[in-house]
């Protein structure tokens, strides 16, 4: 008899080590379990993991130039990017141009360089046509064909394009420019759009999340606390839009919110628009900026006739003038006609931001439209996790708190609310992460200032065909989401999150 308990590894009755025996016994069931998930695993790998990985790699790897222009690539990579481009490089370039033109791939290579330095596409194609007849010295011949060949920054741009593994796209996604000499500088100011877009995307997502929370919390509370029959009816009302196509819901908002839409008609009919307008104007500089009345008459007058109206306005008594008129007159007398008309233009633009001029509000094809439609669409994602958490909070807690002397508010705030935090966390995470990548709704109702980063990614995917930049933008978005997730874990704790 072996003394298995005191010395050495445990063995089974026939002497095999217990661990190995256990593994053998478990192997069959593990294999079966794996067999069951294998199809799904293969599917996810094939249609999700692999394409996304491949696409993500594009964000920092683009071998187009290297593939079609191999000779010049070799020399460009050796070049330090600062000194004068050499005759040798020019010769290799000419050879590549001849070859690429024969292969009909010159367009692709040119497009790649054009992404780094606009205008170079035509330079490449035009030079390629003449390349076959070129003779040494090639640098001079290239410059003769197109004067841009003489610019060092063009050669630097080509060097960037020739570098297949490049941080250029990720830097471009952050409004930075990677130059041929290896330095990184800010993109010129009028082309800095991505950071603004990322910030706007975050801002919209945050506002949508907060609105969903503010609207969803009471609804979830009702769902969890009403009688079963009423709660079921309410639940259907929550779920019905959820099951409706996102396209239908978004276009429904167009009908609701447009200038001659339901909401504007109702507001104009009830006079509510005036109330809202006055209320909004209270908080602005131009206290009496009534869009279809006095003030806009003055502004439109100045814009239409300029000096004549300004003279008339100047002649008015100071207390008879509207704030706009007073301001325009002040600027007219201080800085002259041009400045006064410019101010009128600014006031007009200000007015147009608030309405159409017939005191209707522009609520669609702008940020407002995006916010309203997205809040509506994402609301169920807040309500459902909140509801499932609230459902598990027994009403006895509130009663207990009240019996212990807490007022309704204290009972809610100190006893009920802290217990809903896991639901709030889950709902907010869900809504925020869905919102940050939202695409269709901003595309349909966002207009100019309601566009989000996904719309830009879509633009680079379908219109500009700069897939590498699209990949880099997507990569930055992914990193932001993962960072926020990490932050949430640190602050609240992922374990604290409950979806149901």
């Amino acid at each position, binding site marked *: 008899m072996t003394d298995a308990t005191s010395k050495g590894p445990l063995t089974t009755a026939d002497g095999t080590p217990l661990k190995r025996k256990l593994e053998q016994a478990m192997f069959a069931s593990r294999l079966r379990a794996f067999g069951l998930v294998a199809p799904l695993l293969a599917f996810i790998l094939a249609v999700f993991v692999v394409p996304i990985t491949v696409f993500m790699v594009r964000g920092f790897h683009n071998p187009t130039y290297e593939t079609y222009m191999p000779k010049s690539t070799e020399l460009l990579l050796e070049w330090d990017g600062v000194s004068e481009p050499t005759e040798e490089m020019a010769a290799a370039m000419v050879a590549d141009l001849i070859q690429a033109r024969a292969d009909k791939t010159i367009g692709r290579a040119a497009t790649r360089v054009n992404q780094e330095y606009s205008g170079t596409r035509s330079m490449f194609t035009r030079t390629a046509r003449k390349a076959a007849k070129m003779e040494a010295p090639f640098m001079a011949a290239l410059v003769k064909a197109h004067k841009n060949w003489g610019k060092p920054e063009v050669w630097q741009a080509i060097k960037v394009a020739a570098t297949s593994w490049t941080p250029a796209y990720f830097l471009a996604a952050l409004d930075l420019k990677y130059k041929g000499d290896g330095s990184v500088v800010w993109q010129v100011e009028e082309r800095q759009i991505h950071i603004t877009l990322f910030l706007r995307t975050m801002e919209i997502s945050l506002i949508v999340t907060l609105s969903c929370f503010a609207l969803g919390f009471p609804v979830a509370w009702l769902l969890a606390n009403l009688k079963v029959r009423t709660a079921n009816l309410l639940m259907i009302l929550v779920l019905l839009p959820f099951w409706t196509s996102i396209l239908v819901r978004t276009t429904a908002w167009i009908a609701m919110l447009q200038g001659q839409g339901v909401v504007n008609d109702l507001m104009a009919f009830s006079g509510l628009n005036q109330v809202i307008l006055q209320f909004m104007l209270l908080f602005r500089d131009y206290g009496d900026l009534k869009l279809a009345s006095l003030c806009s008459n003055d502004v439109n007058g100045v814009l239409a006739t300029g000096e004549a109206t300004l003279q008339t306005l100047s002649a008015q008594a100071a207390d008879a003038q509207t704030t706009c008129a007073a301001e325009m007159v002040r600027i007219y007398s201080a800085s002259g006609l041009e400045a006064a008309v410019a101010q009128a233009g600014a006031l007009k633009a200000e007015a147009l931001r608030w309405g159409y001029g017939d005191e209707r509000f522009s609520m669609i094809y702008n940020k407002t439209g995006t916010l309203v439609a997205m809040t509506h669409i994402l609301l169920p994602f807040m309500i459902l996790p909140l509801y499932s958490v609230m459902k598990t909070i027994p009403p006895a807690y509130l009663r207990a708190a009240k019996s212990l*002397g*807490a007022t309704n508010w204290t009972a809610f705030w100190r006893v009920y609310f802290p217990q809903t935090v896991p639901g709030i966390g889950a709902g907010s995470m869900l809504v925020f992460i869905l919102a940050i990548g939202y695409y269709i709704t901003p595309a349909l109702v966002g207009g100019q200032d309601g566009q989000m980063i996904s719309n830009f990614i879509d633009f680079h995917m379908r219109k500009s065909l700069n897939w590498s930049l699209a990949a880099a933008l997507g990569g930055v978005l992914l990193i932001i989401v993962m960072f926020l997730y990490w932050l949430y874990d640190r602050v609240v704790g992922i374990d604290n999150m409950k979806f149901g």
Partner: protein
Amino acid sequence: MAAGSGDDVFVEFEGVQKSYDGVILVVKDLNLAIRRGEFVTMLGPSGSGKTTCLLMLAGFETATHGNIKLGGVSINNIPPHKRNIGMVFQNYALFPHMTVGENLAFPLEVRKLGKAEIEQKVTRVLDMVQMGGFKSRRPSQLSGGQQQRIALARALVFEAELILMDEPLGALDKQLREQMQYEIKHIHESLGITVVYVTHDQSEALTMSDRIAVFDDGVIQQLADPATLYERPENAFVARFIGENNTLGGKVTGMNGVNATVQLDGGPTVQALAVNCGAVGNRTMLSVRPERILIGDASAPNVLEARVVELIYLGDHIRCRMEVAGDDSFIVKVPNSHAHAALNIGEVTPIGWVTEDCRALDAV
């Protein structure tokens, strides 16, 4: 009711009625007076209205009609948080996101007491329930019994004069339940607080209470101390609900002072104490406790023939099911003493009882 006009009445229900749907009265005309320092239990089957009464007293339900007074003042319009009534809930309702200490401090914090005072009161009440070392634990880290103690401590910590308990021991196992019964009883006695206790467990009610109000169908069937309730039930419901009981249906054939002569459905005629049986000719239900049956004693006042159907040995006594007057669910408890009669299944033996032990009640 017995204490209705006493000087020291603390809690008083006056003609209280309650309906949830406007169709059914859950509580029908409740009149109950509870003295200061008394331990009163509301006992009854589920749906009898006892919990509704407790919720009305706590302020979570409003009385449809009638008046509830606390210390002589009507509290109908006082919201729950101003009533200063401690309550222990069925599943304890300890706040899961707070530690034991925070749970206990909660009622004191909402009363805006100072930190030092809160600290001192929390420590004292924890010692009272013997949970001194558990202050920083979460409720989920405690066993059922420990949670129960904390829930009790939380109801006591703000020194309410009235404590309500809604089946507080329902979730505990038998042994722990019995132990907690004695502890609650002792705390009640040492603090002199008034306790209104709701349960459907009659042994719990008998153990702890000064008086028990037996509820059924929204009405108090009997309000009395445990001994009276057991020994002298006033109607058939109480007789059957409290303790084990043998019932025999019959008809009143004659009245003889305090006793009634009843002809059983099975044929024989017996004497019983007339409690609630009405006049001659009425149907009645005779109630006699299993431990009051005299077995094998032909000289007892009321002797019937009984056949042994089943014998169950239970250690301290033998439980004997017999067929008496055509009814085979008649139970007799035979004490396991040296002198007890040796019974065999199928054996026919005379049984009997003292007339006062057999109560003629209303027929159901």
